[in-house]
Each structure stands twice: as structure tokens, then as C-alpha cells.
């Protein structure tokens, strides 16, 4: 602005204004701003790319292909020698996959004597059909001899093909689904028998070597146990420690030591807590490996510093006038803290606790060391039974080669992120709602 007249005045005025390089400086200013914008865009772009790739890979995991077949619970297949009244194990060992296969053969109109065709039919339905049909029969043995429509899971490869994830232009020998199976699939699809349903199994199944029958049921329960343990232990201990340090402790060497310790523990790598858990809880105290209880203890120690730091900030934010008022009316110091300061600091404490819990829920490394990378098929009945956790389940699926596992893994990540986001949003809402500024 001021330098615009410079060239017009050049001839008229003897002394031109000193050139202080405003143009260059404004350019530098603009460049600096742009760097800032670029920096933020890089962060946000990365966030967007990450979320988009995960969601685009994982959303299909919430649907699962099934084939609805009229299964005839044929006595000749289930119990050929008619011994089930005396030997109940017959119903457990029976050849259930044969039932599903028979129904499929009938549906597709294949000649059972045609051996090559029958061979191609192998691997069309999931092996999970065995458990599925066995559960139906053991729940109600009177179905034997009747016919009933059952949704049988399709095998993982067919599931991928049905979702259009398999490139059919690849040579038949190099893909996992044959042309004949694709034909059958299209036929069943046209009949409306083969269809995608919401994948409840993803939330209920335990570990399995087959993608279509593996789910996060055990992991969800394990994570739930751990979160309860962390909440029950870390919240009271953390609040008690903060109250002592903030309200009662005199400033001396000992409290300084505690303070340095807490700040340092908040920055100790999480895997070190795993080593602590392995050496102290499992080897020294003899607690069970892979148990949610030990995981909960380790995560408690890890979360404590976060909760203590948040609680101390919340306590310190309560103005001294409230303390003076309570003491002035004759409350003891303990009554002042518990009846006046603590309720006022509660929203801040709660926010800190939720954020700490969210971090604990996503933590993986220490759990690997205490043996939670385990193949657990049955629900843990107590926190002392072997279990896995959500992030550990994701890690285990990440190590599987099959593409269907990658799909499940991405689905599991979506679920984990939804949980975490719900917790974080709760924390933000709580903070907005109840936060008081004095």
C-alpha cells in the first residue's frame, strides 16, 4: 500500500522512501500461513484416508452370505443304527454336513452319483453347518425325520465371491472359486435362496480357523471385563491419590517423589507395563495367563496416572473461596473435600476417567505379553478364564493370510472405533454440559 507510489514518485522526490522490503515480508507472511494450512491438511487428510480405507474394506463384514436350504433331518444320516436312546453321543458325532450337502444337491439338481460334480460341491457351504445343525438337533431331538428351512452359512470364499470381491477375470486355476461354483451361486441367487444377511456371528462367535465362523464375542466379553476392572480399581484409587496430593500433602521430598513418579509413569511405554504384569502378576503371584483379570490389573496401573493427572487438574480448578466457605462454616477438612470440592470437580474427573478408559480399551501391547493372544473359542465365564480383547483380536486377524479375515479385521476395527468414539463424545458432551468456569 505505502510502496505503490514509489515508482511514480521516483523522479519527483529527491529521497525515495527507504525500501524495507515490505513486499518480500508480506510474501513471507503468506507463505508461512500456507505452511500452517498445509500442516493441518496433512494431518486431516491422513485421518480421512485412514478412515475411508478401513470403512471401505470393513463395511462388508457386517453382512454374511447364507444359503437357505430345506434340511431334512434324515434319521438314516443322523442315527443310522438307531442307538440314540441308549447312547446320546450319537447325536454329537453324527454326520451333519451330509444333511446340508444332501439338501444342496437336491436344490441344485445334481446327480449324487456324479463324482466330479460332487467333488466341486465341497467347500461351498461352511464347515460351521455341522455345529449349526447339531445345535438344532440337540435342542430338540424331535426334529429328526422332519424337514425344516435353515440358513446355512456359505463358505468364506463363496461369501467373497457373492460380495463381488473376487476378480472373475483371473484364470480359474488361480482363484479359490471355480466357475462351476459361480454358476451354482448365480442359480441360487436367482432363486432367492442365497442372500446376504446381517452378520450377527461377527459379534457372537469366538475364535475359529474359518473366517465365516469366527467373531469377536470372546473379545468383547474380555474387553468388557477389563474395562469394569479398570473402572472399579483405577477410579477410586486415582481419586483418592489425587485428593491426598492436591488437598492434604505437605510439600516435601516424599510428595515430590510421588509427583515425579506419576508424571513419569504417564509417559512410560505401555509395553513395560506388560512386562511388569508378566513378571509380577503371572510369575510371582501365580495368576492365570490369558485372563481378563490380569489384563485389567495391568491396564489399571497404566490408566492410573491419566486419571490422577485429570483429577488433580479438576480439583485445582475449584476456587479457594469454596474451601474457605466450607471451613468457615465449621466443616472439617475431610468434610470440605468430600462434601464440597469433590462434587464440584466430578465432571472433570469423569471426563478424565472416560478418556483414560478409552485409551485402555485400545491398548494392545501389554496384553500380548500376558498371553491374551490366545485361540479362545468359548465365552469366558469369569474374569479368570482365558479371554482375548478387542484390539488383540484385531491383531490376531491381521496375522491371518486369508482375505476374508482381512474383511473381518476391518469390521472389528470399525466396531472398536465406534466404541472409542462413543466414549470420547460422551466425555466431550459431559465437559460441555457440566463444566463450570469460575
Amino acid at each position, binding site marked *: 500500500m505505502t510502496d505503490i507510489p514509489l515508482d511514480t514518485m521516483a523522479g519527483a522526490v529527491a529521497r525515495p522512501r527507504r525500501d524495507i522490503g515490505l513486499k518480500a515480508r508480506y510474501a513471507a507472511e503468506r507463505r508461512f500461513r500456507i505452511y500452517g494450512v498445509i500442516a493441518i491438511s496433512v494431518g486431516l487428510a491422513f485421518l480421512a484416508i*485412514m478412515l475411508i480405507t478401513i470403512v471401505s474394506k470393513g463395511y462388508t463384514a457386517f453382512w454374511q452370505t447364507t444359503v437357505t436350504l430345506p434340511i431334512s433331518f434324515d434319521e438314516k444320516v443322523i442315527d443310522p443304527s438307531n442307538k440314540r436312546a441308549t447312547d446320546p453321543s450319537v447325536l454329537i458325532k453324527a454326520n451333519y454336513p451330509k444333511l446340508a450337502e444332501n439338501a444342496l444337491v437336491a436344490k441344485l439338481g445334481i446327480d449324487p452319483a456324479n463324482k466330479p460334480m460332487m467333488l466341486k460341491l465341497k467347500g461351498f457351504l461352511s464347515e460351521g453347518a455341522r455345529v449349526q445343525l447339531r445345535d438344532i438337533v440337540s435342542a430338540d431331538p424331535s426334529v429328526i425325520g422332519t424337514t425344516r428351512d435353515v440358513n446355512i452359512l456359505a463358505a468364506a470364499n463363496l461369501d467373497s465371491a457373492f460380495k463381488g470381491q473376487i476378480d472373475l477375470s483371473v484364470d480359474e486355476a488361480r482363484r479359490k472359486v471355480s466357475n462351476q461354483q459361480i454358476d451354482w451361486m448365480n442359480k441360487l441367487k436367482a432363486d432367492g435362496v442365497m442372500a446376504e444377511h446381517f452378520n450377527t456371528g461377527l459379534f457372537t462367535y469366538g475364535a475359529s480357523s474359518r473366517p465365516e465362523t469366527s467373531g469377536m464375542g470372546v473379545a468383547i466379553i474380555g474387553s468388557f471385563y477389563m474395562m469394569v476392572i479398570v473402572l472399579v480399581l483405577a477410579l477410586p484409587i486415582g481419586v483418592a491419590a489425587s485428593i491426598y496430593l492436591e488437598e492434604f500433602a505437605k510439600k516435601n521430598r516424599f510428595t515430590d517423589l*510421588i509427583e515425579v513418579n506419576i508424571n513419569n509413569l504417564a509417559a*512410560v*511405554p505401555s509395553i*513395560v507395563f506388560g512386562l511388569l504384569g508378566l513378571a509380577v502378576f503371572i510369575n510371582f503371584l501365580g495368576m492365570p495367563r490369558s485372563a481378563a483379570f490380569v489384563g485389567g490389573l495391568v491396564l489399571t496401573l497404566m490408566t492410573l496416572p491419566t486419571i490422577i493427572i485429570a483429577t488433580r487438574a479438576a480439583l485445582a480448578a475449584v476456587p479457594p473461596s469454596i474451601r474457605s466457605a466450607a471451613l468457615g462454616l465449621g466443616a*472439617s477438612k475431610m468434610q470440605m473435600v468430600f462434601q464440597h470440592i469433590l462434587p464440584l470437580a466430578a465432571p472433570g474427573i469423569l471426563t478424565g476417567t472416560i478418556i483414560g478408559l478409552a485409551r485402555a480399551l*485400545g491398548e494392545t*501391547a501389554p496384553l500380548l*505379553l500376558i498371553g491374551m493372544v490366545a485361540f479362545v473359542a468359548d465365552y469366558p465365564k469369569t474374569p479368570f478364564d482365558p479371554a482375548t480383547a478387542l484390539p488383540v483380536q484385531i491383531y490376531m486377524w*491381521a496375522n491371518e493370510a486369508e482375505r476374508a479375515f482381512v474383511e473381518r479385521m476391518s469390521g472389528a476395527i470399525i466396531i472398536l472405533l465406534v466404541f472409542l468414539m462413543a466414549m470420547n463424545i460422551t466425555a466431550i458432551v459431559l465437559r460441555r454440559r457440566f463444566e463450570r468456569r469460575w
Partner: protein
Amino acid sequence: MSSLLVLAIIIAIGVVAFVIGRQRAAAQDTGKVKPHSRAHYHGWWAFLLAVLPAVLLLAVWDIGSSFYLDRHIHAALPERTADSKVASEALDASLVKSLAKGLRRLDAGTPLPATFAELQPLLIAKGVALASDTQDYMIPIAVDANTVQDRLGLFGAVVTFALSIAGAFYALRQIAPRARARNNVERLMLWGLLAASTIAILTTVGIVLSMLFQTITFFESVSPMSFFFGTVWDPRFAAAGSGGSQGQFGLIPLLAGTLYIAAVALLVAVPVGLMSAVYMSEYASRSVRSVVKPALELLAGIPTIVYGIFAVVTLGPFLRDLSAALTGGSPFIQGQSIFTAGLVMGVMLIPVVSSLSDDIITAVPRAMRDGSLGLGATRSETIKRVILPAALPGIVGAILLTASRAIGETMIVVLAAGVAANLTANPFEAMTTITVKIVNQLTGDLEFNSPQTLVAFALGLTLFALTLVMNIVALYIVRKYREQYE
């Protein structure tokens, strides 16, 4: 009687004591004498006296009786001879213990067979699976151990109940209008608060001691020199029971990988994080900030496993294919590489750097900013020449804290950095880190006392010491810096 049941009964006694104490104190308040404490404090005092000593006794008794039972079983076991069927006395004792536990599941009154072969089906019917090398002579020992345990448990329970009731009576007899029940309760509460705050110290002590003992055992078989200065990492897998062939445990390749990846991560995170913090605090409008800040916080809230999976499933293959397309043949970036791991870790650290430096930049006093702007400096000049130099110590502290996060980060490198212990300068090759090796050495069924497992603790201790120094220096700097402007 199980300890949990005893605990529940003690608490029930405590609750009864609370109710009686409160009522008695309330009844004594006739209005003539001003009571020292309100009635419920008397109740609480009775509760605490009924519960606390009894629970302490119960804990001590439980630990003591398990030691006694151990010695009892060891004494009852037959002398060890050359043809003993079980490998060690400790294994012998543990078999007896699991057998004893299994026997408790049998229905009362079941006649006990004399041989394990006959006993096993009975146990399996109850869902108890036992090791097949359980011997016949263990059955009477297990039965005896169970009776001893029952007797100890019963005796312990009776003593604890007596103590609990005595405590309750003592507290209830003390109740008087001028009794200082509130002071008593509050003194105990203060002790409780103090105890809670020492947990932090106990944790640190636990971390150091647990790793120190294992590390000392490790150094008995591998010399510290060859660990700290060895350049070859080749631990040789030792399966459980094989005794283990001696491997080489050189720290240098792991340390180099750790520092290399952390350096790449910092190279990404520090400029980006710092610039976004500057932009957010100095330039961004309120509306931009209200959107971007939560988004960056979201980036901080994503678990590291998700970053690791993104690196290994999406970014790694993408970079490999990209480099293959660039050279038109073989890729020069491997699927797992220092570059990939460092890049993703850097993105993970962006919000860490930016939130730490945001605090530090806003702590620079307003007057310094206004003075610089008033002298005619542009905003960027003010930031570069006044604010950043003033904030420099704090920012150094923040970078140190971030570096310690980068060194201790596990899941990203486990998935994206590789497991081969290379010593290379090429950032596009795979290298491994200390944390990766800790995870590798401790997952799977390894014999616990082999150097292959113990080395993980030596690595952990090294990691802990490294991050501890960085954290303490960083916290010291940040604290000093804050005081400067307060």
C-alpha cells in the same frame, strides 16, 4: 470355608455394627450435651473397626496357610529316587495340588478308588482334566492336603469372625456424646488416601525390581558386554525343555532400528505438529478451530494398532507398488520398511506434538506478542523471532516427550517395521526395534528361564531407562519453562 464367603460375612458384621452404632449414638443425643460427632460417624467407626483388622488378619492367614500347606505337601511326598516318574519335586507338588483341587469337585460320599486310572474317569465326568502323569501315591496325599486345608480354613474363619465381632463391640462400647468418632474416622481416611497415592511409587518400584531380577539372571548366562555392544541379534529359538542352545544377543541392531524409526517419525511429526499448533493458536478463526481441534484429537484417540494395520495393509503395499512403478521393475521400498513405519508413527505423533506445543505457545505472555506487533513486525515474524525463541525450551521438552513416545511405541513397529535385525542405513529396508523383539521373545510357549525369554526383560529395562531419562529431562524443562512465565 472360602475366603470370599468369610469376607462377605465380615462385611455383613460391619454393616450390622454400623446400624447399631448409629442408632446408639442417636439415642444418646438427648439434647443436654452437644455431641462431638454426628451419629453416622459412630456407625462408620464401628464398621471400620469390625472390618479392617479382620480383613488384614484374613489376608495374612490366607498367605500363611498356603505356605504351610505347601510345606505339608512337600513333607508328605516320597523321597526322590533315581526312578521317580515325575521330573522334579516342584512338579510333583503341583500335580498333587491340582489333584486335590479336582477331588473337591467330586460329589460328597463318592468312594475313592486307589489308583489314578480308576479315578480319572470320575474326574472327567465332572469336567476336571488332569495331567496323565499323576501317580497313584498322590491320591492319599491330596486327600490329606484337602483335610488340612479345610481345617486351616475353618480355624482361620473362626478367628477372623471373633476379631471382627470384638472390634465391633469395642467400637460400640466407646460410643458417648463426647467421643471423637469423626476424628478417628477421618484419621483412617487420611491413611487410606496416603496409601492410594503411594501406589504410583509401588508401581515404579515393581517395574524396576521385576525387570532387574530377570535381567540379572539373564546376565548370568550372557555377558553384559556382549549384550550392550554386540552387533548380531540371533537368539536361536529354544523350545520348552530343550535346554536351549546359546544364541547371540546384540542390542546394537535393535537400538539402531529403534532410533532410526523414531527419527523418521519425529521428522514427520515435529514440523507438521508444530506448524499446526502455530496456525491454530495464532491464525485460525474460532470456527475453524472448533472443527479442526476435535478432529486432531480424534487422530490422537485412534489406537496404535489401527495405525499399524493401516501401515501394513494399505500404505506398505501402496508404497511398494509405487516404487516398483517408478523404477519400472523391482520395488526399492519393501512392504515393511523403516520409512513406512516411521511415516505412520509420525502421523500418530502429530496430535501429541501439536497439543503439547499449543499449551506452550499460549503460555508465552501477551505482552511479548503485542510488543513485537507494535514495532511493526508481521505476524509470522513475531512468531519466528519472538514467540518461538521464547517458547524454545518448552518445545524442546515437548519434542523429548514425543521422542520417548516414539521409542516406546510397539504396535506400529510390530506390524510395519519387520522382524529381521538388520543394520542398514537404507530407510526403505526393514529394520527391527527393541519393542518388537520384546513382543517376539515373549509370545509363544517359551521356557521361562531360558536366556531367549529373559532377554526381553533386559531389553525392557533398557527401554525403561532410556525413556525414564528422556521423560525426566523433558518434564524438568517443561516445568522450569512454565515457572518462567507464571
